[in-house]
């Protein structure tokens, strides 16, 4: 594996496109997007245009735009009172997410203050989310908003300690002690099972639930997931909790969980067979329920035999958009496909250390790739399939390449052994359809 930094401009779907999807996923949240006309227009028009899988925010009552007037900056506290008014007109709102980007800040809105004020007035959690807050590592991923929202939700999780006061079972005390003393992977005591919180899975909650079931089967107590279906369902998260990160784009959220004292398991993402096996094994080890997934993984590989034959030797190019490309490429390379290039608009090497170590020797990772250069490389290499952003998809299809957007994979549910099957099926059906269409003489 080689990592190359191209310092170009990758084609990435703007993170705000996900507002509609998030509002729908969270269910009981009101999302207020504060900014200029630009943010509102983006949130409203982008999803429908880019992928049928994305949920348009245009007609969603749970998405409201606060359009600031540059001539007349709002006095402090007025945004908060407008939020209070719009929550008053709605039911089933248990959480307000105030999405405020750089323009809001430049127009003199102190979003953190407004969020605190609104929270006090409403007696509801109001969280500020800045989709453009700079990361430690430069670059933008289309899934950045997801990362920020999960970080904000982590702040809302009850601390472990309070729930300990309610439940007085013996092993929990040991869990707390374990959390204080051993950080992570030291051999846990007998019967010292620590609760696991799954983090991620926003685009495909079904698949995330499947993975939770997989963990329970391995004897792990899954306390819940972030994001959950409602604020009330958020699991306790603090010292003694084991956090299992499912998505490769959640570096900020993982750091937030660590700050709260939770143990974040450093392992592979639960994508693909080996990824899921390592994930389940490492998470259950950290939770104190040692298990071996070797047998399960072997049988999963065997079950996928027929599908693997269909993609063996197929040449796949990942242009890079969501950040899910690295684990996907790792799995597909293991499954027999030839991965030509993995684009990574942002690559957090520390967070993805386990992934990068397992990436096959023939895979090249290109950090912040230049999308025009990529298009030329694709023309030269003529891969069997290009996985790219919606923006590149059409030009590449016009040049005669077979394309799928990364979003399609993410929405299909990447997690667990079932996810591995879904990924391969998605690829196989795409290739099959292309073959049928190619066989026509036009």
């Amino acid at each position, binding site marked *: 594996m080689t990592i190359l930094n191209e310092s170009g401009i990758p084609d990435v779907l703007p993170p705000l496109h996900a507002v509609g999807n998030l509002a729908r996923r969270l269910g009981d949240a009101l999302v207020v997007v504060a900014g200029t*006309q630009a943010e509102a*227009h983006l949130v409203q028009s982008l999803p429908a245009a*880019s992928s049928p899988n994305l949920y348009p925010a*245009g007609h969603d009552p749970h998405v409201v735009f606060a359009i600031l007037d540059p001539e007349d900056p709002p006095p402090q506290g007025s945004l908060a009172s407008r939020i209070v008014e719009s929550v008053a007109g709605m039911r089933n709102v248990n959480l307000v997410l105030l999405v405020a980007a750089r323009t809001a800040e430049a127009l003199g809105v102190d979003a953190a203050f407004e969020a605190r004020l609104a929270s006090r007035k409403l007696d509801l959690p109001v969280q500020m989310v800045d989709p453009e807050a700079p990361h430690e590592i430069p670059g933008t991923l289309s899934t950045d908003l997801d990362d920020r929202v999960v970080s904000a939700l982590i702040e809302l999780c009850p601390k472990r300690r309070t729930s300990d006061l309610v439940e007085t079972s013996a092993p929990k005390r040991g869990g707390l002690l374990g959390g204080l003393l051993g950080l992570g992977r030291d051999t846990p005591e007998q019967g010292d099972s620590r609760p696991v919180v799954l983090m991620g899975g926003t685009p495909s909650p079904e698949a995330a639930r499947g993975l939770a079931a997989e963990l329970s089967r391995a004897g792990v107590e899954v306390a819940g997931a972030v994001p959950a279906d409602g604020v009330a369902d958020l699991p306790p998260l603090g010292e003694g909790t084991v956090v299992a990160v499912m998505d490769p784009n959640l570096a900020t959220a993982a750091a937030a969980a660590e700050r709260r004292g939770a143990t974040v398991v450093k392992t592979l993402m639960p994508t693909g067979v080996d990824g899921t096996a390592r994930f389940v094994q490492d998470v259950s080890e950290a939770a104190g329920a040692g298990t071996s997934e070797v047998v399960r993984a072997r049988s999963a590989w065997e079950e996928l035999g027929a599908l693997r034959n269909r993609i063996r030797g197929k040449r796949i190019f990942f242009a890079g958009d969501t950040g899910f490309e690295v684990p996907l490429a790792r799995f597909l390379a293991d499954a027999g496909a030839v991965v030509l290039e993995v684009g990574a608009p942002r690559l957090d090497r520390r967070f993805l250390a386990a992934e990068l170590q397992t990436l096959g020797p023939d895979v090249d990772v290109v950090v912040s790739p230049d999308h025009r250069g990529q298009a030329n490389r694709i023309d030269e290499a003529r891969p069997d399939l290009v996985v790219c952003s919606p923006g590149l998809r059409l030009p590449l299809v016009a040049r005669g390449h077979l394309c799928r957007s990364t979003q399609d994979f993410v929405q299909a549910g990447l997690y667990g052994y079932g996810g591995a099957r879904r990924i391969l099926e998605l690829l196989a059906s795409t290739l099959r359809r292309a073959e049928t269409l190619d066989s026509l003489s036009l």
Partner: protein
Amino acid sequence: MRLVHGVYEGPQSYGILRTAASIRGVHTVFRALPGEAYFPTLYGSRERTGELAPVTLSPLREQPDDSMAPGNVSRDLSGVLRRHPRAEIIVVARSEASLLSGEEAPSLPETGTRNPELVTFSWEAVGRKETEGAELALEDLVRVRGQDPPDRSPYPTVNLFGPPVLSPGAEAEYAEIERLLDLIGIEVNARVPLGADARDLRRLTRAWANLLLYREVGESATLYLQDEHGIPRVTTPMIGAAGTGAALRAVGQLCQLDPRSVQRTIWAELARTAKLPWYARLEPPETFENRKVAIFGDFTYPLGLGYALAREVGLEVVACGTYLTHLERDFFFHAHSFTEGAFAEDDPEAVAARIEAAKPDLIIGTHLEEGVAESLEVPFLPLCPPTADRPFVERPLMGYAGSTVLADLLDGALREKKRKPSGEAGIRWTDSALQEVAGVPSLLRGRARRLAEDRAREQGSGEVTREIFLESRS
């Protein structure tokens, strides 16, 4: 500060990009945060030509001076010059975040051999909206290329000033008008902005007249050409048979054509192509009697459609609105010739309330009016931009062919209403449920009602109770 559920227009940078991307040979350097650059994605998926948008992002980010990564405007500009050797005009547009950061507009680096024109806009401001941005950008582009103008062509020609790229059916509108002009013997000198070449902008003064199809974007450019170069303009919206005929006669006069020959062509077209007058005569008068229509959209389309529907078809236009609040006065002036219910409003919820209060039998609007049409259970035609659908075959609304398209659409919509019995059979609403519905913003009410009725059907209940309604909303 306003709280809204939707917007009709994008920001000014989006308008600039639309105008610039319409003209071949113009490349735009867009100074913005990576998260603001959504135009290329929209362009790719709406236009479906397979071309990458002629836009290069110059990302706004903090980085050390010695970094060679994109982000330094002048370096990015040189890069664009190198990579796009055929670009004749380089436009620098700045996003809202870029304007708020207080950056200076960049100047073009010296290249020595080849110097495309660099266009920056001094009027960029954060609060300005898409249509104004598109209009001012077009004027500046025409001005920049206005030096050393060529003389009038020896035979009559006109410039078409129509909608920019990403307008529904824009190509088809230009094509239809060009076809009609060809019939009366006038050549099209240039289509501006969509379909123009950067070189065409130098040749605009060859035209004898400017035909303004889409005032929203072409207004100030044609005014400039009128004032500076004495090129007269025709501004009648070419929608419906009457509007088209009037515009063609006016153009014919400006081009010194024989009025009788123009009129003969118009009659031939009325006999062959234009079916809206036929439709109005063939359909029994009862179809239109007491039929009320509400129209909402930009400027040209609601005015043109309103006039055609009120005069040529005989529907009562109870409301006619525009979201272009900066054109409010002009809009009222024109709209008052066919309706009492003219309004200007750019909050979708207030628009929905206006339309609801007018109790129309047919709604013509943008895709944001779909909800209110659903909640009133009246037929809906999304004919005004912005619309969400993107058909592979574009149909014009302007010209005689456009009037036929309109006749077909009206026929479908007004018939549909007749077939449908009043009040959908089966599901009743309890009073308390109706009270709850009243609390939902009218823009979203249609969807809420439908979901609740679906839920009631699922549960096998013959009526929607308050509980069922609340369940369906959670």
